[in-house]
């Protein structure tokens, strides 16, 4: 699915050769500041490599329309930003910015259930706690039904329990819906528990893949 050849980004990341498989959960493991988030951003063209090639489904990433690529390969940031307004507004804005038709309320409610966010659609989204925001952000991503989901390590401000819950939800979602998940974590136990493949990146270099 993703193929990287001699990819270099500043002094942050340098990967000679890497292949990530379709419809699996791949964990990117490594200590913080090692280039993991940069790696994810390269995959959905939020940034471009200085040299080398990245292929998505056999096509060079730089040949894709970047916006269309990002709608297929959606990234969930470490600290997702919640849009102004209600929970429903957050869903509607997500659909609006990706040129989708608005869904019915039951679709939104169903998504909230999937991420175990027991809230009313008309509740003010800015009043949600850190973990609830992360879950709403995840529900927004699910609404887009991406082919591939890039999950950056949830913010350090979340407690371990909530972090684990979110990863579990994402993992269940991708398995049930036959999607691909590439997630960043510094926790080897999380990687072992959920991932089909583990890629180890340390100080910007690929250490091993298993």
């Amino acid at each position, binding site marked *: 699915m993703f193929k990287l050849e001699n990819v270099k980004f500043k002094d942050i990341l340098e990967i000679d050769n890497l292949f990530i498989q379709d419809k699996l959960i791949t964990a990117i493991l490594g200590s913080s500041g090692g280039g993991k988030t940069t790696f994810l951003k390269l995959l959905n063209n939020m940034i471009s490599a200085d040299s080398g090639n990245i292929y998505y489904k056999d096509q060079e990433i730089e040949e894709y329309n970047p*916006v269309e690529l990002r709608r297929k390969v959606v990234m969930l940031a470490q600290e997702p930003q919640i849009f102004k307004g209600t929970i429903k507004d957050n869903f509607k804005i997500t659909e609006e910015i990706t040129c989708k038709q608005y869904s019915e309320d039951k679709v939104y409610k169903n998504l909230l259930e999937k991420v175990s966010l027991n809230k009313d659609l008309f509740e003010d989204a800015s009043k949600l706690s850190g973990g609830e925001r992360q879950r709403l952000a995840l529900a927004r991503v699910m609404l887009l039904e991406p082919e591939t989901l890039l999950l950056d390590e949830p913010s350090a401000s979340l407690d371990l329990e909530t972090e684990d819950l979110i990863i579990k939800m994402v993992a269940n979602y991708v398995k049930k819906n036959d999607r691909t998940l590439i997630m960043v974590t510094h926790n080897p136990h999380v990687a072992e528990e959920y991932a089909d493949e583990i890629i180890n990146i340390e100080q910007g270099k690929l250490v091993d893949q298993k």
Partner: protein
Amino acid sequence: MENAIVDIHLMQLVLAYIFVVILLFIVRKKNIGNESEIILASIRMTIQLIAIGFLLDYVFANQNPFFSVLILLVMETFAVYNIYGRVDGEISSELKGIIAVSMFSGTLIAIMFFLLGVIGLEPWYRADYFIPLSGMLIGNSMTGISLGVNHLVNGFKDNKRLIENYLMLGAEPSKAVEEINKKAFYNAILPTINSMMGMGIVFLPGMMTGQILAGASPLTAIRYQIAIMMGILGSVTLTVFFMVNRGSKTFFNKRKQLKENNK
């Protein structure tokens, strides 16, 4: 009623500088410490106005389209550099270019429409109308764009993560910056709107005051004032609209990525 202008003699003018002396006295007494700036501002204002007085006197007496256009270009260029100087921090050369193009195009459209369409100036370059009226449109647009650029630059700085989040979800950059653009535009035109709100009640605008002092009937003066306010509003709106819409694009590269450093 006597309509002649009350002339100010040189000695009377010197008397007016007593206000600067009072200000300097207060500043020194309170140890505020920017006396040199006040003195410099007073001297600059005096020299600049004397120079422009003689220049305009010559230009008005020798009506010529070349002079009018030249002075317009000098005003535009000065305004553009003034905007660059007023921006917090550094801005990219691309954004500087957009500012210059927006200033020139927006004000020129408004000036031409206003002078030829609304006032019906003949000949079009009649310097005693062309220069002061253009100056008012350019000056107000300069303030508008300065505010707009600052709000735009700070909007990008403060909302970097939010913009990135929009892009990560697959939004076009134009969607990702919609709110920032709206805010920058609104804040840039706000002073013009506010000044229109208070006009005639809170204060009498400069041009109207000048015309009344020069002997014009208040009813004629208000007509000009209303027209110039509409001209200013049009000019500020056009220049800021161009600048915000084109300017916000300079923060992204061709791959629709947020530039790390927009310099």
